[in-house]
Structures are given as structure tokens and as C-alpha cells.
């Protein structure tokens, strides 16, 4: 019965005391959430720690859970906040890519550099190329791309999960797509 239930209903069932509902929910999102965190922090040990924190926070906050948005948005919003805490703890400030005008800086840099990424990654394996190029993306752009690919959220949902405007999300995603696509077309 639980396999066809929505995420929100499963979470409500778990809040009502159904532990099995949580297992179904967990199985649905464990891979995507883990990869999102892992590719954002690039460290398996730290990723596991953050991943566990996110789920434990969800478990502790179950009594306050109300269906106000998609469960996926709720879950990834918690993960995003945990990552931001991690960034702030490990460095003096947020990564520069999270600033609103970072895309303009990137635009100027790309105009100066021309098609440099395409030429540099031309000889690598495609998967490795993509993985490597993904790591070279700024954090904010990579986050938007990962959220789109791993959770399947729309732009509006990503905007809600990350706490920025839809246009900002679209801009970040556009730059991420542009760079990754250049590498792929160059490789192929």
C-alpha cells in the first residue's frame, strides 16, 4: 500500500507512528539525496555525515511537519541548509558562486577564455569528463544542476528549496548547462 502513496502521505503516516512508511520514503530518496550532498562537498566521509544529519533532522522534526509543499522540496531544503552550514563552518564565508551577480563575472570570464574547457577535456572518457567538469562548476550552479537531475524538481521548486528566485535558478542552470554541454559536444 505504501509504495503507491505520495511522499507527503508517507511522511504524515510516519508522523502518526508508522515506521514502515518512513522506510519507503527513505528508499525513494536515499540515492538522490546522497549524491547531491556528495557532489556538492566532494568528500565521502563528510557527505555521509551531512546525509545522516539531514535524515535525523527530518526524524526529529516530524511532529512539526505540515504539508505546505512537496516533500522533495522540504527534504532538499533541509539538505541545502545543512550544506550552507557546512560551508560557513569550513570557510569564513559562503562560496562566491552563491552571490547574485556571480553569473555576470562568469560571463566575462567565458568571453575572455573562449572554448577552453572543450579543448582541455577533449581526450577524456565522457563519464569522467562530465564528472570532472561537474566538479569544476561553481557550487551554486552545480547545486542547481544536481537538484534538477537528482530530485527532478522544477525551477520553481528548486528556487523554493534553495531560497532564491526562479530567475536566479534559471540563470545558474543555464550557465551550468552551457559549460557541461560544451564539454560533451567537444568530447563527442
Amino acid at each position, binding site marked *: 500500500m505504501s509504495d503507491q502513496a505520495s511522499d507527503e502521505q508517507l511522511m504524515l503516516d*510516519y508522523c502518526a*507512528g*508508522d*515506521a514502515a512508511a*518512513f*522506510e519507503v520514503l*527513505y528508499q525513494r530518496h*536515499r*540515492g538522490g539525496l*546522497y*549524491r547531491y550532498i*556528495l557532489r556538492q562537498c566532494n568528500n565521502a566521509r563528510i557527505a*555521509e555525515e551531512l*546525509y*545522516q544529519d539531514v*535524515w*535525523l533532522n527530518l*526524524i*526529529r522534526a*516530524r*511532529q*512539526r511537519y505540515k504539508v505546505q509543499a512537496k516533500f522533495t522540496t522540504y527534504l532538499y531544503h533541509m539538505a541545502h541548509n545543512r550544506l550552507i552550514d557546512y560551508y560557513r563552518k569550513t570557510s569564513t564565508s559562503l562560496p562566491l558562486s552563491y552571490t547574485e551577480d556571480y553569473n555576470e563575472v562568469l560571463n566575462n570570464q567565458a568571453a575572455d577564455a573562449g572554448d577552453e574547457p572543450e579543448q582541455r577535456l577533449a581526450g577524456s572518457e*565522457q*563519464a569522467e569528463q*562530465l*564528472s570532472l567538469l561537474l566538479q569544476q562548476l561553481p557550487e551554486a550552479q552545480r547545486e542547481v544542476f544536481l537538484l534538477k*537531475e537528482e530530485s527532478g524538481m522544477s*525551477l520553481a521548486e528548486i528556487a523554493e528549496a534553495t531560497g532564491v528566485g526562479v530567475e536566479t535558478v534559471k540563470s545558474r*542552470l*543555464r550557465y551550468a*548547462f*552551457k559549460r*557541461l*554541454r560544451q564539454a*560533451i559536444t567537444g568530447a563527442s
Partner: protein
Amino acid sequence: MSEQKHDQNEAFDAYLQGGHELSERYASLSAEHPSQKLDDAILAASRREVEAGPKSIPGGFYRKWKTPLSMAATVLLSVGLVSLYYRQSDEQMLREKDYLAVPAELPSAPPASTSVKPDVQQDLPSIAAQGLNRESDKDKNIRADSTSSDIEQLAAMASRETAKASSTRVESELPDEERLIRAPAVAALEQKPARMPGEKKQKREIQGRGLTTNPQSIAESDDLSALSATVLADGYSKETARQSAEEAQVSRRQAAAAQRRYRPATASRGDKDALQEAPAAVVHKYMRQSDAELESAAKKLLLRISRYRATGHFQQADRLLQRFHQRYPDFPASLRERILDSIAPVVR
């Protein structure tokens, strides 16, 4: 250049629609998963949480009752402060000896000396005993203040009565309205000796020594009589003022004579005996003065009630009127109503 940009836009739109090559390439990347150990730990934690049952949210009580509690605290504090304010203001009003805050332009009652009780002119020793008995009556603050040193007060009152008689005579020649206006000023001058610094100490000394009179007190009262006459003369003819000053001097001499006369006889005896030996006229005047002071205080209290009513403070006025009835049950009703109606309400 624009074509390339157009292609990029189209490709991005296609990517947003889904099924783009980039998404397929990303999906082909190695699919990392959390370890089984981590999965077990998280699922175990979820089961533990369910088995433990619903916990009370930290701070839940405060969050739930924050608004009602803060509102109740605000109401309680406000009511407490308001009631405290009213209680203090009423007590201060009743304790206040200085009723001179009554504005001079307000109409006042007729002179207090006109309401002398006929039974005061009875047997002098019994009246003197009554006067001493009043000393123990704590409720009547005004009388208690005036009987701490009887002989000294008698001498002072004698001179003051003389000056007052002269001023009454002067006032009787004036229109009623002006006389009413001037009454508070006279009362102010007459009450001033009660606030002179160092008087209590002098009174204690007098009580300790018996009934030795205090020349300084007499001198002060004489000065006040003269001052009273001077004030009364202000706005009148200089001749009237000179008459008042002369009468004040006469009263001063009479008081000094009375002092000299009674000092040898009363130096070694108690207050009661000394008062019994006082001349009838002096005791009579003393009794009149006490009644007058009492009546004056009642009138001032009525004026204050009237002022409260005029300014719209009806609750305070009613409360004060209730106390007035308790304190002065025998006050003439017609005079009371007249004083209460004397101040017109403030029109804004």
C-alpha cells in the same frame, strides 16, 4: 554569433523539457549510494523515535501560552498600577495639610468664624477638658496638630483672632464676591505657622517643661497677623491697611500680656490645670478657632471634590465624597451642596 546563441537557447529549453543528452550522460555516471551501515543507522533512529512516542516539543508550553500569558500579565500590571495610583492620590489628598492648592479664583465658602456652636460657651472647665480630650483623638488630625501646646496656641490664637476680627470687619465692607475670593488667602496666612520649621522641637520642649509659652511662636503669629492685614489691605484703601496693622499690633501686645500673666501660674503645673485657669475669652476663642479650622478643612475637601467633578473625574470625586461623609457627618448639607456646585465644569 546570434545563431549560436539561438541554438544554445533552444538546447537549454529542450533540456528543461527533459530527455536531453546531458541528462542521459549524467544518469550514466556511477550511481553512488550511502553505505548499508548508514542506512541501518538512520532507519533504526526512525524506529526508535516512533517507539518513544510523541515528545513534547521543547518550549511548546511557552509557545502555546505565550500570547495569553503576556496579555494577562499586561492587564494585571495595568490594573495594579492604576489602583495603586488612585489609592495613593486619595490618601495623599486626605493627609495633605496644605489645601492651598485651591485656585484663588475659585469661589470659597463664607468665613468659618461665623459658625460657632452655642454650647461652646458653657462651663469653661468642661470645655477645656473637651479640648484636651480631643488631643487623644487620632482621627482628627487637624485638632491633634493644634493641641500639642495649648497655652502657647491660646496666646497665638488670641492675637490671630484679633487680626481676623479686624479683617472680617474689613471684608464685611466689601462685596460678597470679593470676600469669597479673598478667603483662601486669609486661610493660607493663618495656617502658615503650622508649617514653620523647628516648631515640633519647640513644642516638645514646652511639653517637657510644663506650660512655658514660646515667645517666638507668639512673635511669628503676630507677624502673620500683620502680614494678613497687609494682604487684606492690598487693593483697598491705605487707611484700611493702616487700621489692620494697628489692630495687629494691639493684638500682639495683648498676647504678650496674656503670656506674662500666665507664665508664673502655670510654670509648675500640668496642661489641664493651666487651661482651666485660662480666661474664658481666650478659651472661647481657642475653641472657635479649632472648629473654624476643622470647618475650613472640610470646605477645602469639598472644593477639591467639586474640582474633580468639574474636570470630569467623577470616580475620584465620589470616592472622596464618601470619605467626606465619614469624616464630617454633621456638616450642613446646604453649605456642602453650595460648595460642591461652586465650580462650573470645564468646557473644552
